[in-house]
């Protein structure tokens, strides 16, 4: 590199370096307006640690515990399963953030924002749709959910589907426990399942 190129480089150093948050927000809004924002996501704080929440234009697509998953893992998975047009757009998730906050502070017992069921397939979708019908404060067994999903003998498969729930908290897999009352497993760790059940006043 000669002196002249160095001068050019120094000059470029005086250029505005970054577009800033306003430009990012404008970009996300415009992308959404033109139907190009297939998956919007945002970090959301919770008493269970940081979450990543993602939605398609049809509804919620993902809630991930960031102490269990890295953001890169979550986003790569969304890019592969839903669409590579994944963009951080906190303002697109205001509703979800607000409702989650209300839930954790005891002001809300069910979520009103839609869920995009099309991101799920087959038996997993059936099991999770069945799970979504369990109300705040109630619990069901794995066997109940398997039966509700139309396959009473597929208790283990139902357990696997619940373990792979991409929308914990909102699709309340924490409300599914073992026959006999043992908690069973939980995608985010058992202490989180206990926390959620206590929050909902379920007898443990």
């Amino acid at each position, binding site marked *: 590199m000669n002196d002249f190129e160095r001068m050019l480089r120094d000059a470029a150093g005086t250029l505005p370096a970054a577009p800033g948050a306003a*430009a990012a927000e404008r970009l996300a809004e415009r992308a959404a307006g*033109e139907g*190009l*924002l297939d998956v919007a996501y945002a970090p959301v704080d919770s008493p269970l640690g940081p979450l990543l929440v993602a939605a398609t234009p049809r509804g919620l697509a993902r809630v991930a515990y960031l102490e269990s998953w890295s953001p890169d893992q979550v*986003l790569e998975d*969304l890019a592969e399963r839903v669409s*590579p047009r994944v963009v*951080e757009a906190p303002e697109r998730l205001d509703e979800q953030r607000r409702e989650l906050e209300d839930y954790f502070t005891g002001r809300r017992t069910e979520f009103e924002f839609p869920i995009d069921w099309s991101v799920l397939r087959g038996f997993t979708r059936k099991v999770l749709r069945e799970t979504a019908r369990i109300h705040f404060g109630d619990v069901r067994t794995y066997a109940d959910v398997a039966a509700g999903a139309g396959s009473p003998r597929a208790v283990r498969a139902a357990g696997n589907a619940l373990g792979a729930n991409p929308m914990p908290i909102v699709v309340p897999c924490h409300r599914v426990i073992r026959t006999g009352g043992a908690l069973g497993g939980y995608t985010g760790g058992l202490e989180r399942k206990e926390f959620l059940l206590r929050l909902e006043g379920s007898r443990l």
Partner: protein
Amino acid sequence: MSVRLPPFQALLDAHGRDVYRFCAAMVGPVEADDCYQETWIAALRAYPRLRSARNLRSWVLRIAHNKAMDAHRARSRRPIPVAAVPDGAASRPAGNSSESEVLGRLKELPPKQRTAVFCRSVLGMPYAELAVVLESSEDAARRNVHEGLKRLREEYER
């Protein structure tokens, strides 16, 4: 077989800064934001159809190069208000050239040369990558850098 594309946000995070500086250098700070927006919207539109996840930086900068050319064309169609030119404004201060002056001259180069010089001298881009940006051969990319720098240097030394 479709390719595995990274989440689009990864491109924004990795290359947003370079694209923004590129736009600012090519069209100036006032229009930089528009150039930036146009670039990323066009990239987002085309993204799912990409057949390779390689050279994503040069792919985005190629779009930015085209958007910067659009901005230049649009400007050349607009009437330019002529302000009163203060005496001596046309002559350069002797000896040192200010940073904005260097960038101003870069903007005056033909489109391929100014993109080539910026990508090479400021971003340190290899010629193979630059060839993707310019949709040219590596040799042509090299020539554009060489010609652009030569021209800038000649004007500077004049």
